């Protein structure tokens, strides 16, 4: 006797006569249902992003429409007088993030090189653990430690520097008098906080450098540092730019630690040791109790922050993807 297929199956789906997976029935319905569920879950991400954009803009609209240019280009943020110009807050956010990046990136590159090129395997594990722990510590704990333990020390440290440079024209403006709470204080703690992120990306970038190129450089007589400069860095510039931008995005959004260390006074100044304020810190401090226009203005800050970080992140991802394609496709 020869094996014959049930005719109804063969007829109902000539493409796959062995299985009956596409015929209508309970199984097929649950299959479809599951797919719909999965698609819906995937779409939730888009939905949430869309909702964030719509709802926050809607709530911030009074500030945008009533104040208009005075909101986006105003240089005074004094809620008690009804003045909501976001420029000093944007200034503070940018200054703090840039200092943090400037401190953190060389540090991260150093750590990443230490892990990928220098450290013995056993030490490597320990280093990675330390960086992971640094990433795990909540931002508010950095803030607590910074507020009670670092600020008094920062104050005397900054005052020493500011006294030392007091005669020199430009430098004495940048490193002026300080009370401890300052752009620089917030930036330094922020640098420590974003180091794990930039280190992780830098490590990933460095491990993609082809072993052959590195071995080639060493075989030609290069020292380890010459090999890093001649092979690792040229190969990594794009990826490192991505790391810097991701770190920047993260730094601009950091809230609690900055709020505790910066001092809460919107302030456009060249003195990095002076009290200041950032956008997230201002939202954080006031949103709970704010009303009407003040609330709209604060939510508006959230909108600006959302837009800025999205722009930074999208361009960083694009950049990294483009670099990736180039290095993989050769």
């Amino acid at each position, binding site marked *: 006797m020869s094996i014959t297929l049930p005719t109804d199956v063969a007829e109902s789906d000539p493409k796959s006569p062995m299985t009956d997976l596409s015929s209508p029935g309970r199984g097929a319905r649950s299959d479809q249902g599951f797919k719909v569920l999965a698609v819906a*879950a995937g779409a939730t991400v888009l939905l949430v992003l869309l909702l964030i954009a719509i709802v926050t803009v809607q709530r911030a609209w009074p500030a945008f429409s009533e104040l208009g240019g005075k909101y986006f280009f105003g240089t005074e943020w004094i809620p008690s007088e009804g003045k909501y110009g976001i420029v000093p807050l944007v200034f503070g956010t940018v200054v703090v993030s840039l200092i943090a990046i400037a401190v953190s990136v060389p540090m991260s590159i150093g750590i990443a090189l230490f892990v990928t090129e220098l450290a013995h395997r056993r030490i490597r594990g320990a280093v990675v653990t330390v960086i992971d722990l640094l990433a795990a510590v909540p931002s508010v704990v950095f803030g607590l*430690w910074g507020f009670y333990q670092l600020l008094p020390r920062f104050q005397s440290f900054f005052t020493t520097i500011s006294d030392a440079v007091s005669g020199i024209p430009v430098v004495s403006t940048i490193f002026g008098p300080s009370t401890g709470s300052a752009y620089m204080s917030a930036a330094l703690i922020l640098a420590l906080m974003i*180091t794990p992120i930039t280190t992780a990306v830098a490590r990933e970038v460095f491990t993609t450098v082809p072993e052959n190129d590195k071995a080639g450089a060493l075989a030609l007589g290069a020292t380890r540092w010459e090999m890093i400069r001649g092979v690792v860095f040229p190969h990594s510039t794009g990826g490192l730019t991505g790391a810097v931008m991701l770190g920047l995005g993260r730094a601009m959004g950091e809230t609690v630690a900055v709020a505790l260390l910066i001092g809460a006074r919107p302030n456009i100044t060249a003195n990095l040791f002076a009290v200041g304020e950032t956008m997230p810190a201002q939202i954080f401090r006031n949103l709970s109790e704010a009303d009407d226009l003040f609330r709209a203005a604060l939510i508006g800050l959230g909108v600006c922050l959302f837009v800025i970080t999205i722009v930074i992140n999208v361009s960083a991802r694009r950049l990294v993807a483009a670099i990736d394609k180039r290095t993989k496709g050769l």
Partner: protein
Amino acid sequence: MASEVASSSPNQEALREALSGANLQRSRRVRNGAASVAMVVAFLMAAIPLAIMGASVVSKGIGVVLTADWWTKPIPADVGRADLAGNEDLGNLGFGDAADTTDKSVDLGMQPAIVGTLLTVLGASALAIPIGVLGAVYLNEYGRQNRPARFIRFMTDVMVGVPSVVMGVFIYSIWVVARGTDGKSAFAAALALACLMLPIVVRSTEEMLRLVPNSLREASAALGTRRVGTTLRVVLPAALPGITSGALLAVARAAGETAPVVFTIGIVFSTNLSFTGQNTTLSAQIYSQIQNGGSLATSLAWGSAVTLVAMVISLTLAARAISRRLVNK
């Protein structure tokens, strides 16, 4: 032949000497050494502050945490005022000694915040983890490299970069504003934290699903199992340790967040086991106790920090242990 070998031996010696680095130009050797030192210094610049911070958090906070009051008593409501009345100089805060908090007239408890933290994190996980895992199933099992899947993947990466304070502003705008102070609750905070966790869970889960060998899916399909069955009974179980590890990291991240919680959760001083009504978390307590100032409030803040860090670090270590076991298998 023999003479040739003998004559090459001095050359080999010269070669060996050249390779040993002893003859390197001095400036090259110095630069190489300086670079190595710089790398170690970079690591120490991160490690030493971490060690100092860890030491001061533990030394200042462990005292209160190791009392039964800490876990069972409500939060003392007027520590700030009580302390300020006692002439605590605000300028002295930086060196306020957390050890001299033996004023036994107040019970230093933190139970409401511990309960509130667990409640919000639990709520956020219940919302974000199932949706996140399902979303990753869509990306890896259905969408793969098609246009919508690539777009969602990209936007998920972007969403990871959205600051947590923006998530708080979002939930505040959509949920709290309409309801006034009644809107502030553990549920609202859980919503904000879920927004934060969702993209992290999606990406880490997808990463793990990608590691499941295709042969498993094919074998399952060859046995006549549908996509649902294959996914639920073969693919997800195979990826479960990795998914758990990624989810734990997301939970740890959410537990430590302050910004999105503070203006969505309100404040309470006694334990609230419900998702409705105002509540509080450890992170929110750290911030508000710093605002209160004074030595009692300060020791509440340090104690909360120890409790929070212990929670977060054990979640992180659990995640690492799970993923390490995965690698060893």
